[in-house]
C-alpha cells in the first residue's frame, strides 16, 4: 500500500474495520470489534563498514472479536478481499459457539466510548517516512564508524542498525466507535566490541529512538557513547556476596518499573497474580515513588488517543507518593473487580484486550546521579539486568546484574556475573533516592534509582 497519502490510509482502514464489523453483525454476532493495522518497515545493518542487511516490506493484518449468544471468539487474517472478509466474519461467528458465556465479557456502553475528534498526539513524522535505505545506511555507517574510531581497544563490532516503521491503526466496534491514527518511529543502535587482556569480549551498546526523526541523537554521538560504555566494562569481575545499597542506572531501572507495572493491573488482581492484591489505597512503597501512566504525551513512544476497548485514553496516577492509588484496568478486568475501566486497554490483532501501560512515567526526583552514587557510599551501580526472575504472586525478585562497584561514593571497577535479590515489598519501600534525570527514549520513563539495601550474590 502506498503511503503517499497517509490520511487516506487511516480513513481506508477505518472503513475496512467498519465493514468487517457490519459483516460480522450480518453473520449473527451481537457484538463485533475489528482492529486493522497497516505498516511498512525498513531495517539496515552496517557492520565493519559494510552493509550487512537491507530489509524492506509492508505488512497488514485484521483482527476480529465477536460475541454471539454471549460467547466470544477472536480471529485474525491478512486477506482483505471482500469475499474473504465475508467468509472470515462468518467463520468467526461460527467459532464463538465453542466458548462459554461470561457475564463480564461485554462491550462498553455507547456513552463510555471515545468521541471524535480524537486528540492529535503528533505521532506522525513525514521525514521519518521519507527515510530510504541509502540514508539509513549512511546513518548506521556514521554511528558505527564513530564508535570504532573512538579508541584502538575497539577491535570488533556487532554493527550499527537503523530501523524505521510507519504505520496506521484503525478500530471499529458495533457499539459505535470508529477511529484510527498513524505513527512513525525510528531508532539507531551501535554495538562496538572490545577485548579484555584475557581475551574476554565486552560489548556495551547505546541507542536513540524517537517518533520524529529530528529528535534522534546524532549518529556520531550514539557511536561515541556506545564505545564509552563498552570500554568501561573492560576488566569486569565478580565480587563477594554481600548486602549493600544498589543504584539503578535508567536502563536497568526500567526493568524494575516494567515488573512493577505488571503487578498493578486489574488482570493481575482478579487472577490473584500480584503480591499487591488487597493493598489498594495502602502505602506500598517509599514516599519518593510516584508513577503515572500518560497515554496523551505528545510524541510519546507509547501514546495512544484511545484504548483497546475504544474508550478515551486518560492519565492515571498509579502510585502517589508511595500509595497504590489506581489499579489499571481494561473493561473486562474492571468488571471482574466491580469497577470502571481506567481506559488502559491495549489490544493486538490476534488477541483479546488487556490492561497495558502507555507511557509509564516514574516521576523524577531532585537528586543528580552523582549525588545518588555519592550517597550510596559503598555498593553496586547496576547498568544491566538479565533474566526473568520475578514471581508476581509473591513479589520475590532475583536478577542477574552487571555494572560498577561503588567505593567511597565513586564508581570504581566494573562488576559482572552477580545477582541482586529482594522482595518487591521491601525493595520499593527501601527506595531512598530518585534521580532528576529524564530519559524519554522508551515508553517506560525512569530516572536513576537507589535502593537502600539488597542482597548481592557473587563469589
Amino acid at each position, binding site marked *: 500500500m502506498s503511503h503517499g497519502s497517509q490520511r487516506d490510509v487511516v480513513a481506508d482502514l477505518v472503513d475496512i474495520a467498519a465493514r468487517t464489523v457490519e459483516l460480522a453483525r450480518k453473520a449473527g454476532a451481537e457484538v463485533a470489534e475489528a482492529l486493522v493495522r497497516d505498516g511498512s518497515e525498513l531495517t539496515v545493518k552496517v557492520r565493519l563498514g*559494510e*552493509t*550487512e*542487511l*537491507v*530489509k*524492506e*516490506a509492508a*505488512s497488514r*493484518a485484521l483482527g476480529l472479536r465477536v460475541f454471539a449468544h454471549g460467547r*466470544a*471468539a*477472536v*480471529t*485474525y*487474517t*491478512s486477506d482483505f478481499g471482500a469475499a474473504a472478509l465475508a467468509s472470515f466474519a462468518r*467463520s468467526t461467528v461460527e*467459532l*464463538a459457539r*465453542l*466458548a*462459554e458465556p*461470561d457475564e463480564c*465479557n461485554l462491550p462498553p456502553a455507547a456513552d463510555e466510548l471515545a468521541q471524535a475528534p480524537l486528540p492529535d498526539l503528533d505521532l506522525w513524522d513525514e521525514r521519518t517516512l521519507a527515510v530510504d535505505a541509502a540514508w539509513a545506511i549512511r546513518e548506521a555507517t556514521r554511528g558505527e564508524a564513530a564508535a570504532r574510531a573512538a579508541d584502538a581497544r575497539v577491535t*570488533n563490532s556487532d554493527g550499527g542498525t537503523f530501523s524505521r516503521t510507519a504505520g496506521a491503526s484503525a478500530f471499529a466496534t458495533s457499539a459505535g466507535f470508529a477511529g484510527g491514527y498513524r505513527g512513525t518511529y525510528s531508532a539507531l543502535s551501535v554495538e562496538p*566490541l572490545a577485548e579484555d587482556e584475557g581475551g*574476554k*569480549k*565486552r*560489548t556495551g551498546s547505546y541507542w536513540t529512538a524517537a517518533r520524529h526523526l529530528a529528535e534522534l541523537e546524532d549518529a556520531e554521538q550514539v557511536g561515541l557513547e556506545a564505545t564509552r560504555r563498552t570500554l568501561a*566494562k573492560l576488566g*569486569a569481575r*565478580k565480587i563477594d*556476596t554481600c548486602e549493600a545499597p544498589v543504584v539503578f542506572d535508567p536502563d536497568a531501572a526500567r526493568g524494575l518499573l516494567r515488573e512493577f507495572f505488571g503487578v498493578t493491573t486489574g488482570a493481575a488482581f482478579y*487472577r*490473584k*497474580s500480584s503480591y499487591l*492484591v488487597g493493598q489498594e489505597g495502602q502505602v506500598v512503597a517509599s514516599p519518593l515513588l510516584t508513577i503515572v501512566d500518560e497515554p496523551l504525551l505528545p510524541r510519546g513512544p507509547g501514546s495512544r488517543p484511545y484504548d483497546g476497548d475504544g474508550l478515551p485514553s486518560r492519565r492515571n496516577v498509579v502510585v502517589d507518593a508511595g500509595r497504590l492509588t489506581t489499579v489499571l484496568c481494561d473493561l473486562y478486568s474492571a468488571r471482574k473487580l466491580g469497577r470502571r475501566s481506567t481506559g488502559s486497554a491495549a489490544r493486538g490483532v*490476534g488477541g483479546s484486550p488487556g490492561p497495558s501501560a502507555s507511557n509509564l512515567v516514574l516521576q523524577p526526583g531532585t537528586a543528580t546521579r552523582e549525588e545518588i552514587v555519592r550517597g550510596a557510599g559503598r555498593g553496586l551501580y547496576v547498568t544491566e539486568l*538479565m*533474566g*526473568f*526472575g520475578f*514471581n508476581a504472586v*509473591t513479589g*520475590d525478585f*532475583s*536478577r*542477574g546484574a*552487571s555494572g560498577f562497584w561503588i567505593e567511597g561514593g565513586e564508581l570504581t571497577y566494573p562488576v*559482572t*556475573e*552477580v*545477582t541482586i*535479590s529482594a522482595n518487591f515489598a521491601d525493595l520499593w519501600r527501601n527506595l531512598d533516592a530518585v534521580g532528576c534525570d529524564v530519559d524519554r527514549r522508551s515508553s517506560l520513563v525512569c530516572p536513576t534509582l537507589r535502593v537502600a539495601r539488597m*542482597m548481592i*550474590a*557473587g*563469589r
Partner: protein
Amino acid sequence: MAERFVFPIDAALAQRLLGFALERGGEYADLYFEYRQGADFVLEEERVKTVGRGVTMGLGVRVLRGDATGYAYTEELSFERMAQAARTAAQIASGGPTVAPVDVAVATGAPSFYPVELPTLEAAPEGKLELLRRADRAARASDPRIVKVEASLTEEVKDVLVITSDGIFVEDRQPLMRFGVRAVAEDGTKRQSGSSGGGGRFGLEYFGAGPDDARSPEAHGREAARVALAMLDARDAPAGEMEVVLAPGDSGILLHEAIGHGLEADFARKRTSNYSDRIGERVASDLCTVVDDGTIGHSRGSINVDDEGQVGQKNVLIEGGRLVDYMHDRLSARHFRRGPSGNGRRQSFRHMPLPRMTNTCLLAGPHGPDEILASVKRGVLAKRFSGGQVNISNGDFVFSLTEGYLIEDGRITAPLKGVNLIGNGPDVLTKVTMLGADFALSDGIWTCGKDGQSVPVGVGTPTVKIAAITVGGTRAS
C-alpha cells in the same frame, strides 16, 4: 480446514521470481512460502472464555551477495506483489555479473521426524475443550487450597515451501501443539503459583490413553497444583556460590543459554562469541557430550527441513569436553567452507534465517541420580525454570528457578523461593563433576528468542552436578 494449502507456485514461476531476485547481481536467492494456521483455547475460572483462530501467509525473498543480505516479504501472493518483493530484495546488490538460477525441480521429499496423522488443530474442537476441563478439575481436586486454575491449548500447522536458486524445492508440514496449566494456591496470607505444560509436534495422541498417563491433562493439572502447594512453604534461598544439582529434562535450559547460543556460527563468523576460534579446545569437563539434534521424533524443536531447505540433522557440538562444531546457517556454512548443518531457522516469512538450535541435549553420564544427590553437602536442587538469558559476548548467562529445594547432607530438606542463578558459559561446563544416567528430554514447552525472532526448541539433560555456581537468593549463607 483439513485440506492442505497448496501454494500458488510451480517451478516455472519460481524460476521467474528467482530471476528477478538475482537481476541486480546477487549471488544467491531463496523464496520461503509459509501458510500458518493457528488456534488457541483458554480456560479460566472453570470456563473456556475465548477461542481464537487465525491464518497468516506470505512469501519472504532473500538475496545474498558476499556476507550481505537483502530481504523483502509480501502477504499477498499475487504475481505483481511477489515480483515486487523479489526486486526489492535484489537491491542489496548493485551491478556485477548476473547469476542465473539453476533449474528448480520438485525434490525427492524430506524425511519425516514427526509423522502426525491428524494435527490437533484439525481435530474436533469439542474434544479439545474437554482436555482443558479435565486439567482444571484435576488441579482443583488435588487440594482445597487451589483457588485459581488456568489451562490453555495452543496449536498450529505450518506449511512451508523453500525454493532456492541453487535448485532446492522442498515442502514441509510442521504441526505443533502446547498444553499448559497454571494453578494458584492460597493458605491464609500465603499465596503461590505453579505450572506444568508440554507438547511438541503431535496430534491428540500426545495426551496418552487416560488420566493416569504421564502426559494426560489430569497429570498436568495435578503437577501444577503440586508445585503451587509445595512452594507455599518455600523459604528464602541462600545467596552465593554453591553446589547445584539440576534435575533431568528442563534443566537443559542451562545448556541452551550457557553454551548453545555461543555455538551458533553467526557469532563465530563475526568473532563476537566467547567460543569463537575455539574448535578443538576443551570447553567442558570430559563427562560432557553435547548434541543438537533436529531429528528427535515429535520433539518441539525437530525439523524435517530447516528454513533454508536443508534436511534436519543430528550434530555433535562437544565431545568428551572438547568443542567439535558450531551450528550453521547458509551464510556461516559458506564462511567456514563446510556443508549445511540444518540449523538455518526463522520465525516466519517476515524474518531472515539465522543459525538456531533445534533440540539441544547433554548426553547421559555414568552416575546414579541418588548418588549425585548424596554427594552434596550443602546446595540447591533445581527442578523447574521460567527462562534464561545469555550475554553472547562475555558469556554470562542466567536462568530463573521456579521450583528448587535446599540440599543438606545429601538430602532434600526444604523448598526454596524462586531465584536466579548466574554463571559464565565457558566456565560452568568445566565444573560439571557428576552426570546422571537418567537422560530426559524436556516436555515441549520452550521457545527461544534471538534478534527479535522466536522459534520452538527442545532441551534435554540427565541429572547434572555443578561444583559451583552463584545462587541469587536473599539469605547470606
